[in-house]
């Protein structure tokens, strides 16, 4: 029976990304009549393997080694390569988070394939076992359907595009895999700075207030901070605002930034380039505030305010304060 392998890099407990990979893997396996498997890697993989089993994987391929306590590309690649040689999967799934983005193309190359990164959906053909994945190209102006007919199809899924797996009662079999060698990390870690966000994380926020080039400078982000703060939300930004140094790059929303799906996405002074919309199109209600009635953002927003944000945001903030 063929195998769909989801690659999990978490230590201890499953992240939302991993749950999405398992969720997608489950439906692909169902369509192909295949078995869902998970690769787990670390110094101690017992807990994460058990969690993967609880969330639908019926086979767990574990690579356990003290050298793999923390993610690093070369080591984890060697581990995954060994797993793939052991189980010869039909499909290998990653999520396009930082590790997934770098692992998918490199693993595919080692297996003599080319990966497909940032996929949104799939269509499987049970008869031929071939799968067609949909991937946005040209910043989302077009959708490419790519036929992955040679096994393994190595694919990285766009975040927040697949339903996370749900827990189920099932028994999983664990197979320990030993790579022939685990290369040392060619890079020495000098410093890791985890960004501390006061308040909610951008990706978990129910309300996101994003600013772009139209804000004209970093000081004007204060208004957005205030509004987001009152609504228990978070501040995001367009790439231009990041490149101008107005906000830190972890706030960038879009195809090459964070993917968010809040109840309200308020885009302030953002023109609505598709590369930006790729990061917020899953929002319940997109609200645009823009001086230019022709701005493409009005083609994506549910509610639009044509006007200068400096005249609209302060009274909006007052309204929200009254409500509180």
């Amino acid at each position, binding site marked *: 029976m063929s195998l769909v392998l989801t690659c999990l890099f978490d230590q201890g407990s499953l992240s939302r990304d991993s749950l999405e990979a398992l969720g997608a893997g489950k439906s692909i396996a169902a369509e192909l009549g295949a078995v869902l498997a998970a690769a787990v890697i670390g110094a101690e993989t017992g807990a994460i393997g058990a969690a993967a089993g609880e969330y639908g994987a019926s086979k767990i391929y574990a690579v356990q080694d003290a050298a793999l306590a923390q993610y690093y590309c070369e080591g984890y690649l060697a581990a995954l390569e060994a797993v793939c040689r052991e189980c010869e999967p039909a499909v290998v799934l990653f999520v396009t988070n930082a590790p997934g983005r770098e692992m998918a193309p490199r693993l595919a190359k080692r297996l003599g394939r080319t990966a497909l990164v940032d996929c949104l959906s799939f269509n499987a053909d049970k008869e031929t076992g071939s799968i067609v994945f949909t991937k946005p190209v040209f910043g989302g102006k077009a959708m490419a359907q790519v036929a992955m007919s040679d096994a393994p199809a190595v694919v990285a899924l766009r975040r927040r595009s697949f339903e996370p797996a749900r827990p189920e009662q099932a028994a999983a079999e664990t197979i320990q895999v030993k790579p022939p060698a685990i290369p040392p990390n060619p890079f020495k870690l000098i410093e*890791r700075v985890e960004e501390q966000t006061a308040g909610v994380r951008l990706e978990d926020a129910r309300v996101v207030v994003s600013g772009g080039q139209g804000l004209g400078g970093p000081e004007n982000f204060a208004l957005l901070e205030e509004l987001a703060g009152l609504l228990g939300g978070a501040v995001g930004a367009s790439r231009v605002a990041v490149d101008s140094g107005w906000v830190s790059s972890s706030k960038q929303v879009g195809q090459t930034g964070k993917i968010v799906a809040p109840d309200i996405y308020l885009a302030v002074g953002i023109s609505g380039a598709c590369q930006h919309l790729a990061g917020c199109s899953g929002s319940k209600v997109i609200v645009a505030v823009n001086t230019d009635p022709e701005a493409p953002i009005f083609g994506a927003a549910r509610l639009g305010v044509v006007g200068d944000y400096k005249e609209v945001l302060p009274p909006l903030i007052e309204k929200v304060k009254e409500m509180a």
Partner: protein
Amino acid sequence: MQIMVCLKQILDPELPPRDFRLEKGEMTPAAEGVPLVMSSFDQNALEVGLQLREKMAGATVTAVTVGPEGAEDVLRKALAVKADRAVRVPLEQDSKLSGGIVAGLLAGAARELGADLVLCGRQAGDWDGGQVGLILAEELGWPGANLVTGIEPGSGGLVLKCELDEGYEVLEGNAPLVAVVTNHETNVLRIAKVKDTMAAMRKKVEQINVAPQGGRLELASLEIPVKEVNCEIIPGEDGVEKADNLFKRLLELKVL
């Protein structure tokens, strides 16, 4: 230090969706009338290379592109911001989903040039493949650092700043290596002086021939998605009225 920066010429990614069309009967976008530009993350990579050269005596920056003769425009742009050399690896086939082939050609060029550090943008702004630099690391058998925003010379090699999903990390590594670059306020490409742009027109573009190898992914279809969003414009004479009405609608939609 021989720094090689990989540059791709693409259709302007800022072209608004309403002007984006496909070539009739073909799975490729209509190029007529659309400006060609240097892919934006490649611009970031070039800037990272230029800044590193300024900090390392004797370092050189070689701009390399894979493509037809017309793609030499991006090399001229690189020469205009003072890249030392410009090299084109000819490839006449179109670039759709050809990341694997292109990475192979770039690896050939890197070997021929004796490069120690190869810089690439994280993904091209046309087909959004997002893998050339990473496959290149595999091809060359070199370490690869991903989502790099800047590189400095360090006491024991190169010091690379890399983005994480939340935050960043600083790594130290030894050349040869491949760095895949992402955008940051510190790596926006400098603007060329007019006289340097003129001078770049007269500079030589070298050519390195490498035999293309490997396959590309199989494109089954290419379509422009239809959007069915109807934007409701919030009425109001002034900012206060608009804010009031917007607030009301958000309450009605039960999202506040």
